C-alpha cells in the first residue's frame, strides 16, 4: 500500500495506466489524447497576433484539453504531497555517467543544481530550461504532437507520421544526450 501511495510504480502498472487515457478520452467525448495542442491553444488565447495558426476558436476546440492540462498540474501537486519524497532509483551506470558529467545532487526529481531559478543565470541552467523549453514548444508544434499525441495515441492507431516523429524524438534525444549534455554539464 505504501508503494501505491508514495513509492514508484512498476512499469507494468504505470504503462497500461497511461495507455488507458487514450480510450478514456475517446469514450468520454471522442477526444484525441495529446498534450502539446495545449501550447497552441494557450498561444491562441494569450497572443494570437496576426498569425493564421492561432486564429481559431480555442475555447471551442481546446477547453476540454486545457482543463485536462490544469488537472495534470493539480495531479502533480497531489502526488508529490502524499507520502515521503525519495530519490529516483536510477541504475548505477546512469548515476556513474551523470556524476562524470558533473551532476552531484541525486536527491530530487530533476538535478537541483541545474533546475532552479538561480541556475537560469548559468549557461547549463539557461540551455536546459529556457532553450530546452523553446525546442519542446517549437518541435511539438512543427511535428504536430509530442510523446502523448504521436508516441502513444498515434502509434496506437498505426499512424506512419507518428512513427517518423518518434524516430525523430529519439534522434534528437540521443544527440542531446551524447553531444550536447557532455559539453553543457561539464562546463558549469
Amino acid at each position, binding site marked *: 500500500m505504501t508503494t501505491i501511495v508514495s513509492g514508484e510504480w512498476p*512499469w507494468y502498472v504505470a*504503462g497500461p495506466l*497511461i495507455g*488507458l487515457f*487514450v480510450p478514456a478520452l*475517446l469514450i*468520454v*467525448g471522442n477526444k484525441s489524447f495529446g498534450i*502539446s495542442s495545449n*501550447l497552441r491553444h*494557450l498561444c491562441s488565447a494569450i497572443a494570437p*497576433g496576426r*498569425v*493564421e495558426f492561432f486564429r481559431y476558436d480555442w475555447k471551442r476546440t481546446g477547453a*476540454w484539453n486545457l482543463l485536462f492540462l490544469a*488537472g*495534470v*498540474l493539480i*495531479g*502533480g501537486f*497531489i*502526488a508529490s504531497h502524499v507520502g515521503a519524497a525519495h530519490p*529516483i532509483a*536510477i541504475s548505477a551506470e*546512469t548515476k556513474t*555517467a*551523470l556524476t562524470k558529467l558533473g551532476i552531484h545532487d*541525486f536527491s530530487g*526529481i*530533476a538535478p537541483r543544481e541545474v533546475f*532552479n*531559478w538561480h541556475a537560469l543565470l548559468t549557461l547549463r541552467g539557461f540551455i536546459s*530550461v529556457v532553450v*530546452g*523549453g*523553446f*525546442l*519542446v*514548444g*517549437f518541435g511539438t*508544434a*512543427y511535428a504536430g*504532437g*509530442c*510523446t502523448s499525441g504521436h508516441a502513444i*495515441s498515434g502509434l*496506437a*492507431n498505426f*499512424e506512419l*507520421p507518428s512513427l*517518423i516523429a518518434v*524516430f*525523430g*524524438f529519439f*534522434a*534528437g*534525444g*540521443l544527440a*542531446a544526450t551524447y553531444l*550536447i549534455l557532455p559539453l553543457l554539464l561539464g562546463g558549469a
Partner: protein
Amino acid sequence: MTKPTALEVENIESDRGVGHPGLLVVYLLLGIAFGIVLTRSEVVSWFRIQEMFRFQSFRMYGIIGSAIATAAASVAMIKRAKLKAISGEVIAIPRKELGSGIRYAVGGTIFGLGWALTGACPGPLFALIGDGVSVMIAAVLSALLGTWVYGWLRPRLPH
C-alpha cells in the same frame, strides 16, 4: 477568406466542439489522474529520461511500450464495437496527414533535443510545476514562445 487547407483543418485537432458542459469536469478529473500517474511512474524525472536515452534501464521502454499496447488494443476494440462516446458522437479518430513527412522528422528531432535537455515532454513540464519544480514555469513560458515562433514561421517552413 480562403478555404483552410487540409493541413490547417487537421491541425486544429478536430473541431468537435466543447460538448456537454458537465463533461468538462470529467476532463479535469482525468487530467488530475494523469498528473498523479506521470509523477508516480517517475516519467517526469530528468534522471529517468537520461537513463532511457543511455539505454541503461528497461523501465521507460516498458512504460511507453505497454502504454502503446494498451492504447492500441483499446482503440481496436472501440473501432470494432463502433462505440459511441458519452457525449453522443460516434467515435472516429482522424488520420494524420503524411505530406512530405518533413515536419514529422524535423519537428520530431527538434522536440527530441528539447526533451533530453529539459528532461520533460509537455505533460511532465506541467506536472513538474505541480511537483514543486517551479523553475519549469520558465520552461513552459519558453515552450509557448517556441510554439508561437513556429506559428509565425509556419508559412515559410517545409511540411
